[in-house]
């Protein structure tokens, strides 16, 4: 099972903003127990999406505060879907079930 791509403030523009796919960004932190526990759920989500249209990345908020500040990420985990360089309005904060994450991606077009 491939690991989810880790992006940084340097690679965020290329991997997320300039992507031609919908991108689910998982904002996480090392001190956050739900973030750690979400890893297998996110991996399972990756096998449940149309990889031609959607991709999933994660970004550590402590090491990339410029990005987390820009998108006003306060609590972790925070899940934001991006398309064409912009974040969708609805986001999810806290540990999530697989279904809720799938809906977040699907319902925002």
């Amino acid at each position: 099972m491939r690991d989810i791509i880790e992006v940084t403030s340097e690679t965020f523009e290329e991997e997320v903003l300039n992507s031609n796919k919908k991108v689910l960004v998982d904002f996480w932190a090392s001190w956050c127990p739900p973030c750690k526990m979400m890893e297998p759920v996110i991996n399972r989500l990756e096998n449940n999406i149309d990889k031609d249209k959607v991709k999933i990345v994660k970004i550590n908020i402590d090491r990339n505060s410029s990005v987390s500040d820009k998108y006003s990420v306060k609590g972790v985990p925070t899940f934001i879907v991006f398309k064409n360089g912009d974040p969708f309005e609805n986001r999810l904060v806290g540990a999530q079930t697989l279904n809720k994450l799938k809906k977040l991606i699907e319902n925002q077009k």
Partner: protein
Amino acid sequence: MNDNKKDHNANCTCWNCPAVQFKGHVDFRACGQAAFRKAAQGQLVVECKRRPEIGLFDPMGITYDACTEYKSTDYGYLLDKMKVMVLGIDGYLGWALALKLGKLGCKVTGVDNFLRRKLVKEKSADTILPIGSREERIKAAKEHHGIDIDFREMDILNRDSLFKYFDETKPESIVQYAEIPSAPYSMVNVDKAVETIHNNVIGTLGVSFAMKDYSPETSMLKVGTMGEYGSPLTGRPIFEGLFPGDATLQYGDDEWSLGGELTPRDPVSFYHVSKVQGTFSVYETCKYWWLRAYDVMQGVVYGLHTPELEAHPSLNTRFDIDEWWGTVVNRFVAQTVAGIPMTIFGSGNQMRGYITIEDAMQCMVRMIAHPPEPGQYDVMNQVTDVLSVGHIAATVAKIGKSEFGLDPVIQRLENPRVEAEEHPYEIIHDKLREKFGFHSETKFEDEIYYMLKKLVKPEIKEQIRKYKDALTPRTRWSGEVKELKILETYKP
């Protein structure tokens, strides 16, 4: 393929390492939402306390296997002369761990207030393996292992002394063994319940504050206990402290992930309550101050040997057998050696997690070698075998009879505790193996055999019989002082 036993922490970076200085480069805020001072490169930089000449650098850049301060050992990469502080160094586990760490090249320092020695004697009992005084132990460690242990007398509740000690030592890892570990002791009366809770909870709290002020990049290995969780009658698995990501709560038409939340606690004595409280102290300080902690939910430890303890009798760790301080496997072995019936409470179907002292020490060293992330609180279920009390007695009887010609007797007593005697019990215990490369080096029956072999000696039998009264279980959870009724006596 990596040899996980030695390489489990090869890819850790300075981000995990206690030698790194975050202070001054990180602005800590509540709930761990840190903001970083931007260096010239616009990214997080830190300094190394061991190699200040390096200046500022990216903490993700160097891995343990590439860092010159780390040496490869059988338990993983360890900081050269890692400064490990063992609180409660004089105890059953503390002394065994101190020797093992010293042998691995760690710079071991530790304190003890010798409360355990005092409380066991007050019970008119004592360790049946003779142990040296503090000075004798220091000398023995030097003579037989060539290690220098800085072992001082101190009560960690004396926070002035504790803080000065932290300031002087600047530990790189802390093992908090300085707690009263007895469930029955905590149930005797209000004074002992208060003493247990005060000693354990306030002690740990003080250590957390000392860490914040003097060694915030250091991890605490907090000893919890499997007894924090209780034994849920629904039979749901006992996860490792925190719910996995796909655990969900369903209510009405909605569902929520429980991922990362603390699993329910259901303690079984005031001692176990103190452990639950200690869990919360430590969990909070990780949140408030970015401290790092492993909560080690330890199964019942048994056995009396590690390679380091074996080197010479002067290095013995204590071996308690009375009803307050002797844990069940050790106590059953002692009872059988002395020709006293093994005392099972109620049906004997109660199940618990168990681990030998050698395996427990291996786990602790691995966790010391592979610290949590900054601000991370994580939980490990430190267990190798799930056994019923009845099975333990039957096994001690079997080996005692067949290998040593003993005449074991089992006695079932009215259960003085408030606990489920019939209950499902599924313990999840994967992390120590998967994350830390733990591999059990011992087997339950081998360890029983080994203990009997060491203890079947006339002088030890005589000493155990001397403490027969202290061995007899009497302490009821109700507080009532009354002999326990015998339900059944038989020879297995």
